[in-house]
């Protein structure tokens, strides 16, 4: 259950986004061909959104990632197009680096510059010329993206404007970040790597929360439609075939939200990375399941661009692909879980016969 701080943060997020125009902003940005709304971004910065997880010693609020789960849900509910989660993850990452280059970037971020943490590319083994070649994916319309170069263990600051880009279905632009002459070395070594991986965990948890908020709101919109839309002299929500599907989605939404909240409790422990991946895997898959059927339950109007439900599906696709697709995150979680099970403690003597079984097949 959310604490008072969490509830206040979430309410403030909802108020700000509603005041800025709510869902209509997502459509407007899409129609305008993308781009970051600098005015909104600086109001978010002024509210302290991007320094929620920054330690207090650095001027942040010093909250735990789990404190921001409800907050991120409110952002998802309104499909705000800004890369808020990536920006939230960037500041504690920079603070953890403690290098002059990191301090400079942190000061720029505090001044309102859009500094974000990129997510690692998932297919770095692709051959030359592949669209997926590079270090990371990141929203392109920001000033600085932080990406990690694993072979050399270097955290780099990159300008997405220099990168190859692709338009995304929500009206945004994705940059395929690559090392280059303009890259600025922010920090290096094992501690930089650990800080970057922790920032990825934060993104997975909060993207998962954003997806929870998104699918919950999309389901509410769909239920409203099912109560209003009439066919055969009845609201379509009176038909059992549709009722049962709506109930299935309600189960999905509720259970996923519980999992994401539970994953937040694992932060700061050894279970953190596995839990964050579990949350992102579940939320990405559930949001796509629910949103696809929200379109179906709206019928033809759901397929029409004029209705907002399509914006929710497209934003869900982008968020599901951010910081680890469901399949990638399942693999991370599966590996973490297998390691837990192989650890000496969980398997007691009676099960010590396991290795025999693996040879018997």
């Amino acid at each position, binding site marked *: 259950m959310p604490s008072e701080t969490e509830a206040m943060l979430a309410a403030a997020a909802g108020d700000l986004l509603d005041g800025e125009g709510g869902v209509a902003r997502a459509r407007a940005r899409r129609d305008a061909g993308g781009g970051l709304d600098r005015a909104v971004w600086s109001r978010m910065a002024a509210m302290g959104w991007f320094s929620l997880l920054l330690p207090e010693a650095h001027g942040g609020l010093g909250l735990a990632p789990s404190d921001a789960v409800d907050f991120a849900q409110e952002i998802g509910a309104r499909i705000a197009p800004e890369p808020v989660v990536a920006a939230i993850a960037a500041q504690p990452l920079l603070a953890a680096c403690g290098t002059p280059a990191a301090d400079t970037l942190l000061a720029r971020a505090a001044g309102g510059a859009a500094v974000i943490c990129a997510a690692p590319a998932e297919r770095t083994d692709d051959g030359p010329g592949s669209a997926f070649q590079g270090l990371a994916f990141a929203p392109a319309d920001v000033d600085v993206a932080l990406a990690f170069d694993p072979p050399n263990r270097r955290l780099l600051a990159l300008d997405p404007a220099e990168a190859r880009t692709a338009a995304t279905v929500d009206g945004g632009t994705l940059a395929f970040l690559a090392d280059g002459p303009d890259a600025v070395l922010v920090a290096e070594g094992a501690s930089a790597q650990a800080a970057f991986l922790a920032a990825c965990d934060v993104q997975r948890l909060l993207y998962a929360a954003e997806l929870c908020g998104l699918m919950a709101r999309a389901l509410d919109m769909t239920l409203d439609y099912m109560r209003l839309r009439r066919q055969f002299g009845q609201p379509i929500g009176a038909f*059992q075939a549709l009722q049962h599907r709506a109930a299935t989605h309600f189960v999905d939404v509720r259970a996923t939200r*519980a*999992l994401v909240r539970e994953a937040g409790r694992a932060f700061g422990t050894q279970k953190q990375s596995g839990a964050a991946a579990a949350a992102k895997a579940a939320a990405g898959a559930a949001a796509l399941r629910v949103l696809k059927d929200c379109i179906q339950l709206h019928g033809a109007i759901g397929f029409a661009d004029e209705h907002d439900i399509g914006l929710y599906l497209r934003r869900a696709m982008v968020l599901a692909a951010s910081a680890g697709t469901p399949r990638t995150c*399942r693999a991370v979680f599966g590996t973490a879980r297998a390691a837990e099970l192989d650890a000496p403690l969980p398997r007691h003597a009676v099960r010590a*016969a396991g290795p025999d079984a693996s040879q018997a*097949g």
Partner: protein
Amino acid sequence: MLRPETDAEAAFRADVRAFLAAAIPDHLRDLTFRAPPQDCMPWYRALSRRGWIAPHWPKAFGGMAASPVEQVILLEEMAHAGAPDIPTQGINHIGPLLMHFGSPAQQARHLPPILAGDVIWCQGYSEPGAGSDLSALRTAARRDGDELVVNGHKIWTTWGHHAHWMFALVRTSSAGNPRAGITFLLIDLSSPGITRRPIRNIANDDEFCEVFFDEVRVPLENVVGAVDDGWRVATALLDRERIQLGAPAQALRALERVRRLAPLADAGLADRIAEAELAVETLTAAFLDAAERFAAGEDPGAESSYLKILATETTQAVLDIAQDLAGPLMAARDPVRLGAPLVDMSEMFLQARRLSIYGGSNEIQRSILAERVLGLKREAR
């Protein structure tokens, strides 16, 4: 569980693990079906002596008053150790119901034997003509002095042929609303006039049966609540009970099967294994969330229908994955010894068909959610 354990919780887990390693007799370990009473009740009584038979019961009634996390630890360790399944109608159903609606005399008489494992209960709700439409039940009880005389036919009664007592819904009035004339009755199954016939299920097991009542005399003191008020008694607690129906007990057992098959499975199935682990974590999180909200005084309401759907369909989905891992052995009738562990191939999969049928079919649960929680209603024409 994703959340970290406190030192006390970790110590509890270690206690449970050590106890299970020592206490489960070999012939009861890794069973894929519920063993008959002569085999499984000694284990029930061993858990009872250890004080762990009723984790969610309050201390005042002899329970453990375990936290939701402790409940999950117990379930995780039992599944992991291959602990035998035990009858739960007493612990999960009639016990909690009597705590709220039973007279002090009924509580004193019936709760201690449930805890001790001396009495097995079964549930007499379904009838040939009353399944999902439970209020259509016709087993009748007529008043005769200080007794009710029961005539009728109950069916699909899990462990009805092993049980000593049945809690049943019987019709005491046929006037007005069909729900208004139902009485909640405790029936001693050794009473004259009762005939029980086991029914074989699709897993080749005599788990349930039908029960015939011919002029069976039941003292009025065995009515729970008031005569004709049984529908309220039976349903008022359903919301709370569904929290226990949402416990990941069966899902963890199914997951254990996946884990044992995992080392034998094709590497290409790693994603399916992770899917199974993730599904059970999701259920566990949902159970903890609901149980903690309930412990904090929140009324779960009809929303808890979602837990029954989630728990049963998670178990079934995990067993689908296990079938996938089993490959061509998926159809093997009997467990196969692969190295040392005994691995069930088909029995749990078949037994799990019942999960989405019993306790209010999942279709009924979905209708409850749609109508009472999601506000999707039929209009009168």
